[in-house]
């Protein structure tokens, strides 16, 4: 077994009101389940994944950037700040990738 980061966010499904465990209960178990199939630890799970929320939410808050000043190189704030958010996106995804990379690879 590989070494995985600790508990935390499994996936975006957890922001949703339903969790897989809770919801698969009422089913007539259609899946031919393997011994440790549904109980296995989720290898994608890591608290660092929460960082990904930042670059998804921040670029959508228009009040942050819907202004013309301060200008940068002649660009109104609206334009240069939104371009700067690209760095935020790259930073967050790079960080999460590096921090959750499987060790020993």
């Amino acid at each position, binding site marked *: 077994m590989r070494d995985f980061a600790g508990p935390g966010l499994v996936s975006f499904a957890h922001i949703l009101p339903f969790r897989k465990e809770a919801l*698969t209960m009422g*089913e007539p178990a259609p899946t031919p389940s393997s011994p440790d199939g549904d109980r296995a630890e989720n290898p994608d799970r890591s608290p660092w994944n929460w960082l990904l929320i930042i670059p998804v939410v921040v670029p959508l808050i228009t009040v942050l950037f*819907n202004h013309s000043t301060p200008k940068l190189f002649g660009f109104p704030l609206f334009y240069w700040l939104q371009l700067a958010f690209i760095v935020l996106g790259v930073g967050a995804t790079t960080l999460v990738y590096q921090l959750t990379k499987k060790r020993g690879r």
Partner: protein
Amino acid sequence: MWKNVNGVEFTVFAVLFVAVSVMGFVAAKWRRPTTMEHLDEWGLGGRSFGSWITWFLVGGDLYTAYTFVAVPALIFGAGATGFFAVPYTVIIYPMVFLILVRLWSVSKKHGLVTPADFVRARFGSPTLALLIAVTGIVATMPYIALQLVGIESVLKTVGLTGDSTLARHLPIIIAFAILAAYTYQSGLRAPALIAFVKDALIYIVILVAIIALPAKLGGWDAIFGAAQAKFDKSPAVTDGILLNANNQLQYITLALGSALALFLYPHSVTGVLASKNRSVIKRNMSALPAYSLMLGLLALLGYAAIAAKITPLPGAKPGTADNNTVVPLLFHSQFPSWFAGVAFAAIGIGALVPAAIMSIAAANLFTRNIYREYLNKDATPAQEAKVSKIASLVVKVGALLCIVLLDPQFSIDLQLIGGVIILQTLPAVALGLFTRWFHKGALIAGWAVGMGLGLWMVYTVSSATRPHWAGSAFSLSKLGFDTKMTIYAGFVAVLANLVIAVLGTFLLRALKAPEGQDATQRADYFTDEDEPSGSVAPTEAAVA
């Protein structure tokens, strides 16, 4: 028939175009597989692409020629609203970071090729899979047609245009015939190889434009000033270099809705599934925003065109203007002919890469989810590859007919609707990757409601010149709200879709309606390159 052709521009364009066409044919030999007679090889490049190739391929796939032409055109016409493309392409990658790796793993494990394949395996419903496949094909066709609009805007500027239908369309028919031929032969390897040239050209062109144009036009201050002056004078209330109170919600929901839709498109999925492991995908989520920076800078050329006093060429109908020509015209007027030729080639070749991938993706949907499901249940991999190759030709002819026979505006409208309808596959495809809680019947009901509502909303959108289909900004007042605010139609439609899917699931569970068989297991969503794969029966599936 073509009298006013700019010789230098045309020659540079043609030479580069021929060069990449040769590459397209040679690509069949690139990273040569033992057999090309398999859908995994023809349609997914052997699922073997590393980080670099994937970066070029997916970048070339998502950032299409039409984007390069239409986004600056939107900025030119309406200002700040058009800049939604930047937040859209920023939020997309962190959003799908954890989703795409799951899709890749389960597809690798079960030999899935299309999003509808996944839905078929997950929910065990051929009907739902068929709906997803048809939605994908219908959404992709106008998207391919739009790539032609991109090439045409360039050809028009070069002077390859005229009054007769033949004069207007012959160049594009030739270009598409060549594209069809090498896609038929080389499959996904062709656009993957050509993407290197396309992206190199685009980056060079943008870099030069972004440095040279402000110097020529008096700096960015002057460029933004000219745009401000234009919008101040215009009678329209929705334009301006900043957003106003009524279009902010539209801006947010359009960026979010477009981002949700992007990786539901079959061609995006094709690009992702062609990568060789999970790390390649994750690394690309960090590297692909480089294209967003390029797109953002390119978008601002719309303002540069205002400052350079560009007047768009006339549209297909008398009295209309074709804003899509502003970027080509900007290069035409501000740069020497040879460089304008390079820029035009960048846009033209930029259209070929996504057009090839889209036709492959649509062909795969037909082959896997219609042909194999309904026409030939025991199709061999070689038969699948053969059918896909032929289907890719049919798809291209269809897209070409769209452009030749219909008003190009119609393709643009269809593409707009395409975004709204592809979003309706979100519950089954994207949420399906995390949970199979939804009942297949409820997903079908949600799809139908979202589709109906979305189409109705887009139908009601009017503008000064057009009574219907004039955009995706739905007025909330039509739902009885006392406001001038607008919202992205696709976003509302997918919310309705979700509500129905959730309520329907509760209802069908209460009624004990039969469930479909889930062929996937939890561990399938985490498998990586070095682990066993192939079309395995669920009972044989090894636990990773």
